């Protein structure tokens, strides 16, 4: 816990821990955290970690991540842990886990896909967890792999 002291403990909010070094900024981006945010956000990068060598941590005060947001994080940081803090106590602590499907927040890269039209449907991807995480569009069957962050819709 001493490493946590680099940034003061938070009273209420979410701590996203065990991010592979270099992922903090991506996590911040997919959570839609930018200059318009009102909450206090602390980003710690390259902290030494016994299990990971180096890791990143993101703390968001006064905001508890919802399950969609946790799914998003799992796609790019499968080793992350999420701690929900209320009144200085960790009330929930869990590892992220890959969902079977992700809906709505990923944009299909295929311009001819029916999900990129005005039809009343959400995008839907099957999550394929092999050596690397791949997403397969349930409609046009296009596969996304590699840099998934780029396909996440702007919140």
């Amino acid at each position, binding site marked *: 816990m001493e490493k946590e002291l680099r940034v003061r403990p938070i009273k209420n909010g979410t701590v996203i821990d065990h991010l592979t070094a270099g992922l903090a900024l991506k996590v911040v981006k997919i959570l839609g955290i930018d200059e318009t945010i009102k909450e206090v956000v602390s980003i710690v990068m390259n902290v030494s970690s016994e299990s990971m060598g180096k890791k990143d941590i993101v703390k968001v005060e006064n905001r508890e991540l919802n399950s969609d947001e946790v799914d998003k994080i799992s796609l790019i940081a499968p080793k992350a842990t999420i701690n929900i803090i209320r009144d200085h106590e960790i009330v929930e602590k869990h590892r992220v886990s890959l969902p079977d499907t992700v809906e709505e927040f990923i944009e299909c890269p295929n311009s*001819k896909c029916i999900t990129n039209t005005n039809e009343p*449907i959400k995008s839907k991807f099957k999550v394929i967890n092999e050596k690397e995480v791949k997403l397969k569009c349930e409609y046009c069957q296009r596969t996304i792999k590699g840099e998934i962050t780029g396909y996440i819709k702007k919140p």
Partner: protein
Amino acid sequence: MKLKDKDIVSVEDLSKGDISKILETTKKIDEGDLKADMSGKVLANVFFEPSTRTRLSFETAMKRLGGDVISLNSTQASSISKGESLADTVRVLEGYSDVIVLRHPKEGAPKMASQFVEKPVINAGDGSNEHPTQTLTDLYTIWSEKGSIDGLKIAILGDLKYGRTVHSLVQPLVEYDIQLYLVSPSQLSIRRSILEDLGKKSGEVIQKASIEEIIDKLDVLYVTRIQEERFADKEEYEKVSGSYEINKELLDQADDDLIVMHPLPRIDEISPEVDGLKQSKYFDQSKNGVKIRMALLELILGDNDGKRT
């Protein structure tokens, strides 16, 4: 699994057992055993882009079974849907028909349509994604000509990178115990991601640049078009397309029982001199398209689940 009321959106949704049932039912129809009676039933042909062959093939299939057909051609379809979503259009058409056959330029459109209607939806081609009734026709042609699919040596030749026919066909084929040769110029070879998927299945997949060295081993040669627009210059195209032409001279080296298939229309990838050879099966393949569609309609709309008494 019962196919009654099932959507036929993608071949991937069909189990090997489903496919066998469809092939068996098609065979019975081919032998003149017509069981299904579609009188009083209506098929809606909804084509958002023209494809006369596919549309007529569905229409013929339904009419041979005694059913009726209503059609929206591409001009009507785009005018009816002006400002209206496809989701709304299919919900309206569902009220007029028992099965909706949909062709649409957007990929995934039939899948979406199937989520908005109760009646079964058959995909008649969605962009470069799928054309399951074509794929089933191809499987039936191979199976009925050869008696089985397991054990065959099958080559697919042509544009393996962009061709939709190829992508749809290779997936179910590798579920069988076959040797699959993929023959193409290197710039048109199959995408790595598809190749990786194929590698996990029963069939053995071998890539080749030329057909000559394997022609004598083959049971099935499936030829597809190489399109000129895929090449930067005409000279390069002519060089490649010339070396992929199927003619009598090449087929002289092949087994007498080889079958030559092509999804049609062909341009010049199969020389007309091949048409008269007993190895040419592409017109039979085209005829089989009607029978496959009859079998699907029987299984989806009929009450006998393909059983004959």
